[in-house]
C-alpha cells in the first residue's frame, strides 16, 4: 500500500505527520520552506507494515488531486491512500 501525505499550504504539518508515521525524529524536518518541491509525490520511506510513504503538494485543488490519484490507483490496481493537510 502507498500512503501519500498531501499539503496545499501547510507543508510542515504534512511533513510532521509523515515523519511521525515513519517514526523519524521530527526535529530533523528543519525549515520546510528550504525544501525543494518536486512535482511528483516525494518518496520518504517504508513504515513498519512495509507501506510506502510519500509526500506531495496537492496543487490547486485537493479534491481533484485525490480523484486523480485514486483513479490512477484503480486503473493499475494499486492500493493508494491520500491524507490531506490543507
Amino acid at each position, binding site marked *: 500500500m*502507498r500512503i501519500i501525505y498531501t499539503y496545499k499550504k501547510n507543508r510542515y504539518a504534512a511533513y510532521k505527520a509523515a515523519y511521525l508515521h515513519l517514526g523519524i525524529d521530527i526535529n530533523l524536518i528543519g525549515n520546510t520552506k528550504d525544501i525543494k518541491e518536486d*512535482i511528483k*509525490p516525494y518518496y520518504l520511506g517504508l513504515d513498519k507494515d512495509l507501506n510506502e510513504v510519500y509526500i506531495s503538494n496537492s496543487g*490547486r*485543488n485537493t479534491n481533484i488531486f485525490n480523484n*486523480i490519484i485514486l*483513479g*490512477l490507483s484503480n*486503473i*493499475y490496481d494499486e492500493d493508494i491512500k491520500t491524507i490531506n493537510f490543507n
Partner: protein
Amino acid sequence: MKIIYSCFGGAHSSIVTSGIHMGYLPMNSSATTEEILTTPFYDKAPNIEVGKPLYMGKDKKNYSIYAMGMGHARNYYTKMLYEFYNEITYNHKKDIIFINVTSLLNNYTRLGGFMSRRLNIVPLGRPLTVYGIKRNYNHFIELVQNVKETI
C-alpha cells in the same frame, strides 16, 4: 495502452473526443445533437467527481480509452501523473498517454459548461455546449485521426 483525454471538467470536450475515438460519434461527418447528447457521460460529471477517469471502453486496437477532467491545473496534474506513474509502474512497459483537448474548446462550450455544471442551469447550458461542440467538431475529428495515426 491507455489513452486518457483530459479537459477542464471531464463533461464535454474530453467525452466528445473519446466518443469519436470509440466510434460512438461519427468520424466522417458532423454529429447530430441527439448523437452528442447520447454519448456516455456527456454533461453528466458533477463537480465533486472532477479528476476521476471515466472509462469509455476499448477501441479496435484494444487500447483502453478514458476521459478525465483536471480543472485549472491541467499541466501540473499531467506532469504529476506521468511522474507518479513512473514511480508505481517502474517494472512495467510505459503504456499511458494523456491528451489535453482543452484547446479545442470555444467560448460557447465554456459558457454552456459553466452554466450546466457549475450553476446547474442545465436547460440553457447543455444546448449551448452542444452548439459549441458542433461548431468545432472538425477539430475534434482531426485530433482523433492524428492520435490514431501516431499511436
